[in-house]
C-alpha cells in the first residue's frame, strides 16, 4: 500500500501544473472571447484562488512521494 501511495504522489505532483495550465488557458480563451470587465474579474479571481491550491496539491504529492503518509501520527507528540 505504501508503494502505491508513493507512486500516486507523482501523479499529484504532475496534476498541479496541468490544472494551472488548463485554468490559465481557459481563462485566456474566455477573456479573449468576451473581453468585458465581468469576464476578466471572474477569471482573474479563479486564477488567483486556484493556483495556490494547485501548488498545495503539488506539495501534497511531494510529501506522498517522500513517504510522509506511510505512517500517520497517532498522537500530538508525533506532530
Amino acid at each position, binding site marked *: 500500500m505504501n508503494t502505491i501511495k508513493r507512486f500516486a504522489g507523482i501523479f499529484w505532483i504532475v496534476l498541479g501544473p496541468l490544472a494551472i495550465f488548463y485554468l490559465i488557458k481557459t481563462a485566456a480563451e474566455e477573456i479573449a472571447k468576451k473581453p468585458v470587465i465581468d469576464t476578466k474579474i*471572474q477569471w482573474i479571481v479563479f486564477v488567483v484562488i486556484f493556483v495556490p491550491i494547485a501548488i*498545495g496539491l503539488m506539495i*501534497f504529492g511531494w*510529501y506522498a512521494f517522500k513517504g510522509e*503518509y506511510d505512517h500517520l501520527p497517532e498522537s500530538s507528540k508525533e506532530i
Partner: protein
Amino acid sequence: MKPTSIRSVILASSVGTLIEWYDFYIFGSLATVIASQFFPKTNPTAALLSTLATFAAGFIVRPFGALVFGRLGDLIGRKYTFLLTLIIMGGSTFAIGLIPSYDRIGVFAPIIILLLRLLQGLALGGEYGGAATYVAEHSPANRRGYFTSWIQTTATLGLFLSLGIILITRHSLDSDLSKSISKFNDWGWRIPFLVSIVLVGISIYIRLKMKESPLFAKLKDEGKTSVNPLKESFAHRSNLKMVLLALFGATMGQGVVWYTGQFYAQSFIENVCKIDFEQSRTILIWAILFATPFFVVFGKWSDKVGRKWIMLTGMFLAIITYRPLFDQLLSISDTTNKKEFVTRKEINTKITPLENTGNSLRTVTSIRHYKEGIKLIEVKTDTLYSQPGKATLKTDIKTSKLLNDENYRWMILIVFVMILYVTMVYGPIAAFLVELFPTKIRYTSMSLPYHIGNGVFGGLTPFIATLLTTIYTGDKLVGLYYPIIIAAVCLVIGVLYVSNKIDPDVNN
C-alpha cells in the same frame, strides 16, 4: 461531563452557528432582488453577475477568516473568538438591511454591500472551527461524532430558516399575493436581514453564559498554548501535511457534494428546469426537512465504524449518480414530448398605462396544460409606444412551470437523495478534523482546510457549474463535471491516504 451540561454546550454552539449560516444564506437567496436594488439596472445580467461575484467574495474570504479567527481562538480561547464572529456577522447582516438603494446613494450602495459581504465571509470563516472545536473538546471520545454532528446540522438548518423566513415575508406583506410580492421586492426583502439582530442577540446571551473549553483552559493554565499558531500550523511539515490531507482527502470533495446537493440543485430546478420560484424553494425545504436528521445518524454511526468510509461512500454515491439524478429532474420538467391539452390553453392580456408618458405596458400571460399535470406559464412583457412606428426591440419573456403533486414529490425525493449524500460526507467531518490536530493549534489548523474545501471548492460550485453550461452549451448537465471531478480526485486521495482510526484522546 453531565448530560445537561453537554446539551447546553451543544445548544449554545449550534444556535449561534445556525444564525451565522442563516445570515450568510439570506444574501445568496435574495441575489436577484439585491441585484435590482444595489447594482445598475441597465444590464440585468451584469447586475446578477455582480451579485454572484459578491456572493463568491463572501466565500473566498472565508479562508482568511479561518486564519484570522483561528489564530485568535488558539491564542485567547474558543469562547470569546466565536462570540466575536457572531457579533461581526450579526452586525453586518443588520447593516445590509439598512443600506439605501443604488437609486439613492449611487455607487456607494454596491461598495458598502461588498464590504459588508466580505465581513460576513470573514466572520463565517472564524465561526465554524470554533463551534466544532468547542463541542468536541467537551465530548467523550466515544460520542464525539454524535455530539459534533449537531453542529453539522446547523448549516442546512440555516438554509432552511432563511428560505422559510423569505417565503413567509414574501406572502405576508399584503392580502393580495401579487401586491405582497411587489412590496417584498421593493422594501420587504430588508426584513429577513433586520430580523437577524434579534436572533443574534438571543444567541449572544446564551453564549455569554458558557465557560471556556476545558482543554484550552487547562493548556492556558499550564502556559502551554501556542505562541504562533499560524507558524506551527503551516510552517511545520508534520502539521502542514495533515492540513493538506484534510483538504485534498476530505473537505474538498465534501464541499462540492454539499453545494451541489443543496445549492446547485435548487438553482438547476429553477433556472434550467424552469420550475416556479416558490415550488423550487419548497422542494428544497421539504428535502432538507426529511434529510437533516441523517447528519446526526451518520455522525453517531461514525463513532462506531470510523469517519473515513462513511464520508467516502457519500462521495462515491454522488459521483456515480449525479448525472442520472439531474437527468431525471430534467425529464420530469421537460414538456417537449408531453401531450398538451390544447383546448385548455389560456391567454390573458393586460395593458397598464405608464404615467406621464402616453405609453403602456403590455403583459401577455399564456398558460398551457399538459397531460402529465404540468402547467407551463409564459409571461411576455413589452411596451406599447404612443409614438407611431416605435416598438419594443426585445420582448421580455419569463417562463415557469408548475408541477402536479406526483412530479413535485418525485423532485423532493431526488433532492432528498442528494442531501442524504451531504449528510454522509458532512455529518462526521467535524469529529474527523478535530481528531487530526493537537489542541493548541486545532482552531487554526482545522478551520483553513474546512473553509478552502467548503468556501472555495464548494461555494463556487453553482457559479462554476453555471459557467460551464454557458461555455459548453450542448449539454445541460455539463456543469456537473466540476463537482464530479473534484469529488473523484478527493475520493482517490481519501481512500489511499486517510486513516479510519478514531483518535481516542484529543486532550493533547
